[in-house]
């Protein structure tokens, strides 16, 4: 097991290296001169040349890449080109809201989706199943911001149950924190509920055809016992995988949801950075999100082999 974990950990290194190379290339090879952006449109050619020199933009591309990689490995992510603050500070400031939103969304998604999927599998082909499946295609096809705005319209504007937008950290009290997270988390959870419910349904149906399910029924176990005890447990591996995939996919949804609900998280940070062309912030946040993605996939792989010892790569 130890060797296996080590092997998987090591296999993440080339992927992360490639991510860094791609991010670097995307930012450096696109038209647009970072020096012009920092110095502003009124800078003289001499000033620009000096700035380029100071930023190392005149070095060969490969040298620039390795200098940058060296800085990252030593924990130096640079300073924001716009505000001059260290990027690590900016990320730390914005991490809390994004983490809270992601965790609450995921909890809602899992808690709603698993029962839905199990019920659909149990009622396979009947009305309830069809409703769940139809709902799941729908949840997947409506843009998150449309769901978000509709939620605001109904529950904040018309019914007045929740605040329209905004975010309060947990330190301002749990009630204040929670009430502002409900609408964004519920809106964001829709596509993940759809995705997870679908996978749960398929895998539970598959397991329900196994011999041990027939045995469990034959020995007089209730239908609920069969579903919860035997079917769901044995369908766990693909379900864990899809939850892992969902966490990775959440990252994209977070950017949109934070924008709709005015939540000052990492998604808003990267959006602000992109609109201001703040290269150092963009590359750091993308790198961070990609690292999280690779790490989650790693954890999923390890859980996989924990639940199903037959799987070893």
């Amino acid at each position, binding site marked *: 097991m130890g060797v296996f974990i080590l092997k998987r950990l090591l296999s993440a290194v*080339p*992927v*992360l*290296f*490639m*991510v860094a*190379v*791609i*991010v670097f290339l*995307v*930012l450096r090879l*696109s*038209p*647009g001169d970072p020096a012009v952006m920092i110095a502003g449109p009124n800078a003289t050619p001499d000033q620009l040349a000096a700035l380029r020199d100071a930023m190392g933009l005149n070095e060969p591309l490969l040298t620039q890449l390795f200098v940058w990689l060296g800085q990252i490995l030593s924990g130096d992510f640079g300073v924001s080109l716009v505000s001059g603050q260290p990027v690590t500070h900016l990320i730390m400031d914005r991490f809390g809201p994004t983490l809270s939103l992601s965790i609450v969304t995921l909890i809602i998604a899992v808690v709603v989706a698993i029962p839905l999927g199990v019920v659909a599998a149990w009622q396979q082909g009947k009305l309830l199943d069809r409703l769940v499946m*139809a709902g799941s*295609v*729908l949840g*997947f*096809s*409506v*843009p*998150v*911001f*449309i769901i978000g*705005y*509709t939620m*605001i*319209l109904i529950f904040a*504007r018309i019914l007045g149950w929740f605040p*329209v937008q905004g975010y309060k950290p947990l330190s301002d009290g749990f009630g204040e924190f929670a009430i502002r997270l409900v609408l964004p988390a519920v809106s964001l959870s829709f596509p993940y509920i759809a995705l997870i419910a*679908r*996978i749960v349904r*398929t895998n539970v149906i*598959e397991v329900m055809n196994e011999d041990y399910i027939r045995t469990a029924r034959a020995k007089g176990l209730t239908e609920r016992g069969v579903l919860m005890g035997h079917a769901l447990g044995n369908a766990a591996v*693909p379900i864990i995988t899809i939850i892992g995939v969902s966490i*990775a996919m959440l*990252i*994209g949804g977070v*950017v*949109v949801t934070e*924008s709709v609900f005015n939540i000052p998280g990492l998604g808003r940070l*990267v*959006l602000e950075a*992109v*609109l201001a*062309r703040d290269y150092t912030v*963009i590359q750091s*946040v*993308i790198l961070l*999100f*990609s690292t999280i*993605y*690779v790490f989650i*996939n790693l954890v999923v792989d390890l859980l996989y082999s924990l639940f199903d010892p037959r799987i070893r790569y």
Partner: protein
Amino acid sequence: MTTPTLTEPSVPAQDLPEMTTVPETGTVKATLRAVFSTWAARISLIVVVLIVAMALLAPWLGTQDPVQIAPGERLQGSSLAHFLGTDSYGRDVYSRVAYGARISLAVGAGTVVISVLLGIFFGVLTGYFRWADLIVMRFMDGLMAIPGILLAIALVAISGATLTTVLIAIAVPEIPRVARMVRAVILGVRTEPYVEAATCLGTGIWAMVWRHLLPSTLAPLLVQGTYIFASAIMTESILSFLGAGIPPETPSWGNMMAEGRVYFLLKPELILYPGVMVSLTVLSVNMLGDVLRDQLDPRMAKRL
């Protein structure tokens, strides 16, 4: 031969007895039949056809100039002059919705073409020419690890908002998925007897790829292409909504929703009309994808 139905397989029963219970899958005829067999698929197909028709016939559907600004007629409600009212610049919302279908469908089709062509290229490269596998697939792994929407936002913001950059930005994150699928299929068939036979006969590389390897990727590509089409329309609307999409003056559904944000509490329909169109399009294309997948890719259908 009579038209085959589900209970009457096109293959004579005495030749293949087991086919009497298993509906035939994978052929063009069976696929078409399946597309028309359920009401959900039929409705999806009709909706897609209607949206395509709306895009093609936009100028003749009682529309006005979708970019004509009329400051005196801002934010009007529905009327005979403006079926769906006007937006904050006084432009006719109905006309913009109709013309917006053109942009969305173009983005969907363009993304499919770019990502499928490049995906086939890299998939064949890594699947058949094994020396390329290590480097290219590591690169693809890296590309897949970057959240697509972030990569797209960054690409658009940095290279400037044009239809071309938006297309590339949406297509690039899809390439590794296509490449992986093509690679997997080719790895599966390259040891098949017919491929080995072709090798023994001295078949050239291009004939081999074109005649013997690519045909087996066609069915899964069709399924994946359908999903990419739907997801591209979704991504375009998200990019425009976030302010990193095609130029704001273009009448696209994403841009309409982005402009409607400011007036959302005042006039929510400015976001909801184009939102419903995006959802309808994505929904029906996805449903068609599901039907195709069930028919063409039974292995994958079992997994999802």
